[in-house]
């Protein structure tokens, strides 16, 4: 709940800031770029919990 709310806000802000400061083309891909960055650093999401896989 908290994660999706904050995530939505963050994506919106980042998209518009990127559109304003970097270039209008960046507005569309800023969200996607963020997905990739977040998935690289924390694959379970910013507020998700790391699940430990037992073999």
């Amino acid at each position, binding site marked *: 709940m908290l994660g999706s709310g904050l995530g939505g806000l963050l994506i919106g802000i980042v998209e518009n800031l990127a559109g304003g400061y970097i270039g209008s083309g960046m507005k*569309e891909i800023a969200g*996607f770029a963020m997905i990739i960055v977040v*998935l690289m650093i924390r*694959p379970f999401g910013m507020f998700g919990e790391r699940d430990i896989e037992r073999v």
Partner: protein
Amino acid sequence: MRTGDYKQTYAELVALMDSPPVWLWSVVLVLALVAAPYALNAYALSFLTIILITVTGALGLNILTGYTGLISLGHVGFLVTGAYAYAVLVSKYHMPPLVGFLGAGIVPALASLIVGAPSLRLRGLYLAITTLAFSFIINTVILEMRWLTNGARGIAVQRPEILGISFESDAAFTHLCLVVAILTLLATLNIRRSRVGRAFVAIRDNDTAARVMGINLHAYKLFAFVTSAFITGIAGALYGIYLSFVSVEGFPFLLSIEALAILIVGGLGSALGAVLGTILIVLLPEATRLVFSVLSAQIDAVFTTGAQELKSMLYGLVIILFLRFQPRGLVGAWHDIRRAWVNWPLRY
């Protein structure tokens, strides 16, 4: 009449085709395809060309999604990179077409390293989202790099002339696509039968178990990405030549969905499935149009105006129907028919 597959040696397990009649019919099919451009009219020939190009692309995706089990929604990104690499090299810098085709393979392969590296840690839905993001990012990058790609204006591409043979005419170009499709088919079949292919399938079935067996997950996943992107890029170059004009609009996101639909309809993880699926998916919108145009002229008009929307609807419908009634795809149906034919009138 064979009654089953009896493998007694290891060599039989990795044989390309397991019986002489299969070889015979394959040669007959290839000869028929070589002769086809001279017998078909221009309309049917365009479908044959599209099918051959799509087979190449679908086989490329099949290595990644079918064999290795990594779902990619971003293959249109590799397709468009390959097309642009060819267009820039050949039309802009006047390189020979063979260099263009090599570039059309290598540039997407390099791009796939960029998208593949972060994907190593991800699975399932997350991987699909990352590759989806990649295809949109690629589109924007191409539009922004105006000095190289002409931005939104696109690049015109001529039909190539390779080793003194001109592929200017439609029939010759179909032959070029046929050669590429057959080479790709042989390459994917050989990859599947080798150590690498077995590693891919092990990763698909259970990557933890594969790792325990000593398969280097990172290396093989990246290898799957690179191979897949290389083949898809070459298909993209062919598609660009076919359209005779390369632009971002020529490669809509629907192509990614179409490629996945082909694999699901054909049967995941089977080269034969990719070929059968391509034939069905490419001909489906046209066949539907023909059926409905017999019924009334108004529906025919709807098909011309809303072609894209109806296409995506049809793909969705076909995917749902296949997942519900024949999850193993056309290849599964073919195996069922073959078994029923051999065992009739007994059930097994």
